[in-house]
């Protein structure tokens, strides 16, 4: 309510009141017109202010309602009673109990714990669950074992602890404050709008002052000059535009919400459109965030498994009897189970009890073999040793489902090298072969290859225990290990990865073609990161890193020419030693970059580095550790499903489906809205000239005033509002995803071409058309154009009540005034009719209207209809309300400006034709906005 145009309008209003004050002091019967005008201006300012506030509040509401969907509860012991209270009501000193699966409600010091493990990955990036006990183990609170952190998750066990920090004082809170310390910078569209306001205000003020001086030097009274000044300001300021822009942006925000992009502030919509770098987190955004079997190795051969979301298409050779053995091991040596009651859920979506890799194996075998539980039932489990970190293997002994085979089957899986150690034979094509050097080498090659893909590799082996040594009644004892665990038969390897979402590679390609650089920033291991980057196309198939080149040419990394590499993988360790110049160098020189093993602070540094290059940076992330970067980014994008609250709070946008591809949709919408805002602004600015010229002519040539300030307000805030919003529904002219993102400092929303074309071309033509109508009305009533020149003083004199017109007729003052209002109405209709043409030409900037389709955007026609209806109501419905200065207008006057409207259309088509015919020419450079 104070910035930009509002200031100008306030100035206008005060000038009005001052003018009235001066008039009143000299003549007590001074008309109240100026007071009304001043009040109307203030009303306009206040209404637009309230409107903007309402829009803002509405979009904030979306977010706050979203937050409330997941209230966090804490189990606290108070007054010797266990109570469940909202987490934000915890205070330091509260004793809380947390059990497996819960989120830690505050920073707590552990008092007692039973087998508690917490997932600190969102805080530290460690993916392994961390044990927690009451022992104090380290000075550093992040390292010691007796502190659980707010917002991390307790995976298993229970823990009782005392709250030591709450809210902003927690470690997470500190990260969040790191985030909030990152200032809220203006969004690119806000900068653009400011720039535009500066241009328009500059034009308004300079023309205003220029004509004030001219008026004074033409011996007008200062009071009159002040009133001219007000008119010029009102004519120049597009009062309705900012509200229109807000509505347009929020319409797009709504449209995007339907496509699963929830935008917190409408301005962020456009920010996404101008994004030139996306720093994406890996887990959950690019990947499915679940381990999935990716490769198998048996019979000396690597097979590829289908890792798409539904696993539907497993094409590897399943005829080998080795596969039969392997599948048996996979099925049996597995403790994971489906949760009951999910018969109708697709396999891949079923909930599972068990850790990530066991889940992957369970689902893999369920898809291929069918009912795993039934198989397990047929092969009754006799005994098992679960996986632990010392053994690094898991073992179980089963009865076989072959009723004639009385042997026990021992199956084992684990770290490949540990499994291999225990084996003496290897199964190839269903037959056992001794494990010699060549087969061991083949194993190592396969292991390295799969490991090199960033996959987690497991080895599988089995042994049929001889029936004579281990009869049916044999009692196995896992503590005594009264069974062999060596000389087993190696069956195969199986590797798992968190596979990329199937939509991601396509989305990354789209980003590429849209000129957006996608950088992966992850806390994960570089090899995994690189593998995923390769598979989604962040590192394209034919580009190499410095290390790859060194490996290929077999030379040390230092000798490789830096320029030869297109891609780079940078780890957090390397990043720590880098100066910001070095980082800039990397960001500028490599097209494809992966940052691995990065900390929250480093993410922030990377984002800042990107911003130093004048890029508009989008950051995607889900963890708390991402939140500073999310906040620092020009647009932070949080994951709606996997995302933590901190991330969602710091972000400007939430992807409800966690899908990277939704970002591309968002970018498209953002770019479209930028283009359409250009059209809206061009449309709105055009009529400013038609509104301004009357005042200039009035001052210089002394014609009766062609259009009044109130009438101008009716155009700006009445007839033009709906059409300018309608332009937001315009479809893109060409594939907007095939061009580069706009440059923050070069591709302005309102550039010179737009202003010049709107003001000096179409605006001027409009003014001429409206003047034609004005002259027609006056001439038909008796005042031919030449009689009007320098008539102003007599015309406006209250004492002259017998002013002669061209025909010698004599007019009273009021009759002239009424005619003047008819002139206002005529000028208004003239602008209105030509604004319809203006609206139609603004549908496109380059293409012909006929290429774009005249009727594809139905809203435009709603806009045109609204224009005409409002015009009709003002002219005929309110004709008797003289305060509004509208009078009945003869029907034929509505058509006087139509040829001009057609001329505008034809002229713009010609302009577009030349732009299309001669791209890059002088015409294109100067006439394309």
């Amino acid at each position: 309510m104070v910035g930009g145009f509002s200031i100008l309008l306030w100035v206008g209003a005060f000038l009005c009141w001052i003018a009235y004050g001066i008039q009143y002091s000299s003549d007590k019967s001074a008309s109240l017109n100026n007071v009304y005008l001043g009040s109307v201006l203030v009303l306009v300012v206040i209404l637009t202010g309230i409107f903007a506030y309402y829009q803002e509040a509405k979009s904030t509401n979306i977010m706050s309602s979203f937050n409330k969907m997941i209230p966090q509860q804490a189990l606290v012991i108070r007054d010797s009673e266990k109570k469940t209270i909202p987490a934000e009501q915890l205070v330091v000193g509260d004793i809380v109990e947390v059990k497996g699966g819960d989120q830690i409600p505050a920073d707590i010091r552990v008092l007692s714990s039973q087998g508690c493990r917490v997932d600190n990955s969102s805080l530290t990036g460690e993916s392994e669950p961390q044990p927690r006990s009451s022992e104090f183990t380290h000075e550093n609170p992040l390292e010691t074992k007796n502190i659980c952190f707010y917002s991390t998750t307790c995976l298993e066990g229970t823990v009782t602890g005392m709250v030591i920090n709450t809210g902003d004082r927690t470690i997470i809170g500190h990260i969040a404050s790191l985030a909030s310390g990152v200032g809220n910078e203006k969004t690119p569209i806000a900068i653009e709008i400011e720039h535009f306001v500066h241009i328009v205000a500059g034009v308004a003020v300079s023309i205003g002052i220029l004509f004030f001086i001219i008026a004074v030097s033409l011996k007008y009274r200062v009071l009159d000059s002040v009133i001219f000044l007000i008119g010029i300001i009102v004519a120049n300021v597009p009062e309705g535009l900012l509200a229109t822009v807000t509505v347009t942006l929020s319409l797009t925000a709504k449209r995007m919400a339907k496509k699963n992009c929830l935008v917190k502030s409408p301005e962020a919509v456009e920010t996404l459109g101008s994004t030139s770098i996306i720093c994406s987190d890996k887990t959950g955004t690019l990947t499915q965030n679940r381990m999935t079997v990716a490769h198998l190795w048996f019979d000396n051969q690597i097979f590829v498994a289908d890792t798409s979301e539904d696993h539907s298409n497993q094409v590897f050779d399943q005829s080998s009897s080795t596969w039969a053995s392997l599948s048996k091991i996979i099925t049996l040596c597995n403790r994971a189970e489906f949760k009951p009651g999910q018969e109708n859920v697709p396999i891949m979506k079923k909930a599972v009890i068990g850790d990530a890799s066991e889940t992957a194996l369970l689902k893999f075998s369920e898809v291929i073999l069918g009912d795993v539980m039934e198989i397990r039932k047929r092969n009754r489990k006799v005994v098992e040793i679960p996986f632990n970190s010392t053994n690094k293997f898991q073992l179980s002994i089963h009865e076989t489902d072959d009723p004639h085979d009385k042997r026990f089957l021992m199956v084992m899986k684990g770290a490949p090298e540990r499994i291999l150690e225990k084996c003496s034979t290897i199964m190839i094509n269903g037959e056992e072969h001794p494990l010699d050097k060549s087969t061991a080498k083949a194993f190592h090659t396969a292991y390295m290859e799969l490991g090199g893909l960033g996959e987690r590799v497991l080895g599988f082996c089995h042994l049929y225990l001889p029936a004579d040594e281990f009869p049916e009644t044999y009692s196995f004892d896992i503590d005594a290990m009264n069974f062999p665990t060596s000389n087993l038969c190696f069956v195969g390897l199986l590797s798992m990865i968190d596979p990329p979402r199937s939509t991601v590679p396509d989305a990354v390609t789209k980003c590429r073609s849209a000129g957006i650089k996608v950088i992966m920033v992850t806390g994960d291991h570089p090899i995994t990161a690189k593998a995923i980057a390769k598979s989604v196309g962040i590192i394209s198939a034919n580009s190499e890193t410095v290390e790859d080149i060194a490996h290929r040419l077999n030379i040390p990394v230092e000798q490789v020419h830096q320029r030869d590499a297109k891609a780079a993988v940078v780890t957090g360790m390397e990043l720590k030693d880098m100066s910001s110049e070095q980082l800039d160098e990397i960001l500028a020189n490599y097209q494809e970059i992966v940052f691995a093993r990065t900390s929250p602070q480093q993410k922030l540094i990377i984002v800042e580095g990107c911003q130093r290059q004048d890029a508009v940076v989008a950051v995607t992330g889900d963890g708390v550790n991402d939140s500073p970067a999310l906040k620092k980014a020009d647009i932070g994008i949080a994951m709606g499903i996997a995302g933590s609250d901190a991330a969602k709070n710091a972000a400007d946008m939430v992807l409800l489906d966690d899908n990277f591809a939704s970002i591309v949709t968002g970018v498209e919408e953002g770019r479209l809205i930028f283009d359409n805002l250009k059209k809206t602004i061009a449309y709105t600015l055009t009529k400013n000239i038609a509104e301004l010229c009357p005042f200039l002519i009035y001052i210089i040539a002394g014609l009766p005033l062609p259009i009044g300030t109130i009438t101008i307000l009716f155009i700006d805030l009445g007839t033009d509002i709906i059409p300018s919003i309608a332009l937001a529904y315009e479809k893109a002219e060409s594939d907007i995803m095939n061009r580069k993102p706009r440059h923050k400092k070069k591709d302005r929303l309102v550039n010179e071409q737009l202003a010049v074309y709107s003001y000096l071309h179409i605006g001027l033509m409009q003014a001429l058309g409206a003047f034609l109508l004005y002259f027609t009305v006056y001439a038909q009533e008796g005042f031919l154009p030449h009689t009007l020149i320098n008539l102003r003083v007599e015309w406006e004199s209250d004492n002259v009540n017998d002013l002669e017109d061209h025909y010698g007729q004599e007019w009273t003052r009021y009759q002239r005034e009424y005619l003047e209002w008819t002139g206002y109405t005529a000028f208004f209709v003239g602008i209105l009719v030509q604004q319809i043409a203006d609206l139609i030409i603004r549908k496109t900037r380059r293409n012909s209207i006929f290429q774009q389709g005249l009727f594809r955007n139905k809203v435009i026609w709603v806009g045109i209809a609204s224009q005409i209806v409002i015009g009709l109501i003002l002219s005929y419905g309110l004709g008797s309300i003289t305060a509004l200065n509208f009078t009945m207008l003869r029907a034929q006057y509505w058509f006087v400006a139509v040829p001009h409207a057609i001329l505008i259309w034809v002229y713009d088509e010609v302009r577009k034709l030349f732009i299309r015919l001669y791209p890059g020419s002088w015409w294109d450079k100067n006439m394309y906005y």
Partner: protein
Amino acid sequence: MRRQLRSRRTPSFPYSYRYRLDDQDELNQNYLADEEEEAEEEARVMVKEEEEEEKKEEEEGQGQPTGNAWWQKLQIMSEYLWDPERRMFLARTGQSWSLILLIYFFFYASLAAVITLCMYTLFLTISPYIPTFTERVKPPGVMIRPFAHSLNFNFNVSEPETWQHYVISLNGFLQGYNDSLQEEMNVDCPPGQYFIQDGDEDEDKKACQFKRSFLKNCSGLEDPTFGYSTGQPCILLKMNRIVGFRPELGDPVKVSCKVQRGDENDIRSIRYYPESASFDLRYYPYYGKLTHVNYTSPLVAMHFTDVVKNQAVPVQCQLKGKGIINDVINDRFVGRVIFTLNIET
């Protein structure tokens, strides 16, 4: 070096040359703009073109003490206004300016042609003799003479300088009504009926005589002071001319004056000249200035022979007759006129 190259776009980029201002702002801020894949090729292509510019920029960048932002801005501004190196004024070369001006000249010339054509068409549709519509100027307004910026007649009978200007004004106004002139120019048409002249609208029309002598005591012929010297002022009332306006047949428009507010007896008597206090029908209709050249508006003179002295008397004179409206709230001059007489002795 490399950085600087990268900070430039290709010459083919449509807006590049225009944003020098922005560019240079960024001069000292490691401005690494482009991530485009062609950056490398661009760089190679552009080396020659930009070498010169670069050198200059580097000099600028180093030569100035950093932090002197105002000086820098001024420099940028002045360079924007006039860049001697590339001979550019407001970021355009002379050639570019002349092209621009030429194009705009043609554009505006054709716009001017269009508007001229439109105005010409407009004039074609408008008759110079008869107005197309007259509804805005009807019903007729009323005006009085003498008129000197004010409707308050304040004068002191014994001080001629307070009323002299009324006399001069009336005299001047009545010059066109001199009997000799009227007899020479106009015809004496029969009273009590319209003076209708058929014929084409561009034919000259004759006008009826309205002689100054019709005004009798207010003609200024017998009393050259129009009664002001005796405190019995004459005020002439004139109905606004409207092309084609005809009062109701047989019922000429009458004038009647009375005190607007206050004691009705403040004006004890008014004499009207012509005595009928009406505008004779023969002066209607009016055919417009161009053809009805010598038309003289009929007048009614009001002779306030016995007005209360030494006090302001508001007088309202109304037209009465069919087709006359005299009670429009917003317009105090349609069918009526209000003025005050304040005659001091």
